[in-house]
């Protein structure tokens, strides 16, 4: 199947077509925040005021993706979010505690449900078609993508809008920091992999894709395969899963031009990738992406967006060093990324 359009709101310049990843946007912090577009050209002004940031980012990326595809009504809308609408959830919880369950208003509660973004997209488009929301931690986006792939295979849909949305709030960052997820002290995302240390940097994003059964004239990419695996026992089990995936899709690593890996700067987390770079990936060029978008459960969506952009352009965006690859156009990409070594994702993308 084909990825015929994308739209990505991230901590980098990824949304405006002519600015895509020309220069890295640096953050001297353990928290990367999305660069938000001007919502006025995408959402009604009255709605903008009512919507929380994640809803605005979700609806806007979805709308832009459909515009890029020239599709007004997708046959299905599928979203993935691990944390859901945290700002509204936190707001309602806070008021509930502060006012001891009295004098509450419904808006934050209504907007706190995990299907809010998919529902809002459906509402804005007046789209009565299939609408689903997956909320499974580091598999939220992958499940949404699996659903989209099956809908296309079943001929239930000719095109599917699929996206991943997760936000950082002050509350979530405080709590996840207490859980020890993030680096402390001086840190810059552009040096994320320079020195081994504990912890990663927090990220967020809203990435949408229009998948279709049939190619169009300006296809972005071919999505050849998706596979996920859960809590592997050791690196050799991971190698086994990757090898099986390649065998099932009849492709050899030597025919893959680029591997995008999910290192996040945490020494323990990155061990897995480093071992693979010494074993099965040793003759391949690998690049990282989480220094651009930060670490979050649906970050694989950023990797898919990046892979799509690379095969469409045939080359790495300017934020990557020129000498990382030979001059030949990049036509096939493997993404291997995991979230907390629990949720592992493999994606195979190629040029059309």
């Amino acid at each position: 199947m084909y990825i015929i359009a994308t739209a990505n709101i991230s901590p980098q310049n990824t949304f405006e077509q002519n600015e895509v990843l020309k220069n890295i946007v640096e953050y001297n912090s353990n928290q990367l925040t999305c660069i938000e577009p001007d919502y006025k050209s995408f959402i009604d002004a009255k709605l903008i005021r009512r919507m929380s940031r994640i809803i605005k980012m979700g609806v806007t990326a979805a709308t832009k993706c459909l515009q890029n595809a020239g599709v007004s009504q997708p046959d299905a809308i599928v979203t993935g979010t691990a944390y859901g609408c945290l700002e509204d959830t936190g707001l309602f919880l806070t008021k509930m505690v502060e006012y001891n369950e009295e004098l509450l208003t419904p808006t934050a509660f209504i907007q706190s449900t995990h299907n809010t973004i998919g529902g809002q997209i459906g509402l804005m488009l007046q789209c009565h078609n299939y609408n689903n929301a997956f909320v499974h931690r580091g598999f939220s986006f992958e499940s949404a993508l699996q659903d989209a792939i099956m809908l296309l295979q079943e001929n239930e849909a000719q095109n599917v809008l699929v996206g991943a949305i997760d936000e950082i709030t002050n509350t979530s960052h405080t709590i996840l920091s207490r859980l020890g997820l993030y680096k402390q002290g001086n840190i810059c995302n552009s040096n994320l992999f320079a020195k081994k240390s504990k912890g990663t940097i927090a990220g967020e994003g809203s990435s949408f894709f229009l998948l279709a059964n049939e190619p169009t004239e300006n296809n972005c990419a071919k999505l050849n395969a998706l596979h996920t695996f859960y809590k592997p026992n050791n690196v050799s089990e991971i190698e086994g899963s990757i090898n099986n995936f390649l065998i099932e899709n009849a492709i050899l690593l030597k025919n893959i031009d680029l591997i995008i890996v999910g290192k996040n700067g945490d020494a323990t987390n990155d061990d897995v990738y480093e071992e693979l770079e010494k074993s099965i990936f040793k003759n391949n060029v690998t690049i990282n992406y989480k220094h651009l978008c930060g670490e979050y459960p649906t970050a694989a969506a950023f990797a898919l967006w990046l892979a799509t952009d690379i095969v469409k352009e045939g080359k790495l965006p300017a934020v990557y060093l020129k000498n990382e690859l030979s001059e030949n156009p990049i036509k096939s990409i493997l993404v291997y990324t995991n979230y907390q070594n629990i949720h592992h994702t493999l994606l195979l993308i190629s040029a059309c």
Partner: protein
Amino acid sequence: MSNKVFIAGLGAISAIGNNVAECLAALQNEQSGIGKMQYLQSVHKDKIPVAEVKLSNNELAKIAGLSGTKSRTALLSLIAAKEALNHAAIENFNSLRAGFISANSVGGMDKTENFFTEFLQNNTKGKLRNIINHECGSVTELVADKLGIKNYISTISTACSSSANAIFYAARLIKNNVLDVVVAGGADALTKFTLNGFNTLMILDNKPCQPFDENRRGLNLGEGAGYIVLVSEKVAATLKNNPNIILSGYCNANDAYHQTASSPDGNGSYLAMSGALKKSGLLPQDIDYINLHGTGTNNNDIAEGTAIKRLFEPSFPKMSSTKAYTGHTLGACGGLEAVFSILALQHQIIYPTLRLQTPMKDLPFVPETIFAKNVKVKNVLSNSFGFGGNCSSLIFSKI
């Protein structure tokens, strides 16, 4: 792709029983589970009746074999999912590609809201163990790990239609040859968050609810979990209990009318039901029983009723809302009601809508009001409609 997906096992826990047999007995004896709040600690406990599972977290933990400090949603989920898997009695389970697709609406919120009380006073306080399973998916993983299911795990959250969507996503994973067997359904425990949320919407009944009654006042929130084990035709053929019920139809459609309210014509409901019929290859007159979404709110019942009128007129199947027994269990209702729908097929029974006194004057049909046995039930339609316009319908058929 044309392979049938069979139902091999059932598991349920709700206000009317801690397992499938107890729930069935309560359905037959017309015993409602709605009453005064005993376990949830809320300032509304004397004003808002709820349908609670009649066990404390520690009692649930003992049955589940999971720590009592875990989210009540995980405890309910594990009890019902284990029952379903045991019931299916699949001997070579470990050699099959197995999945667990669960639904819930607020994950480990029952623990998060306790955490928040301390956290808001001082953000370095609050026990972290109360927040680490906040995510919907964490609750699913606690259960999947106990069940020993690893091949494919996911969580769906589309408000009140969540577990109906989980069940048919599971069926599609089997049809697409991704998996051989899937435990699917959903769970939700009562939380202050949800109770207060629904309270602000002013759709809670302060008496036991009366779905599809002209004088209905709103819904009662409930809690519980319901799971079914779905297997491929190939696996079904190997099972001793000879599964003969299939998930024959399903459809997910969107009302696209309002974030929380249903359209007056019940567009989304109509599309979900007609889509499920189309998928199953059945005609409206083939449906013997509809397990209604039937929450008891003004808005849902007229929208759902109008959609049924549009689709089934002039001859209506028997129908009822079991939410008058279990309350509205949100992320669990599609799973629980799938279990009840399958029991109706297995036992050839139809449940009454408790407390239905005055039929709705704008509808040309009246849901069942007495328990009926020895009824021909071959095809059952189960409706689940929710916030975000999410409407899903499932059809179970006896073959």
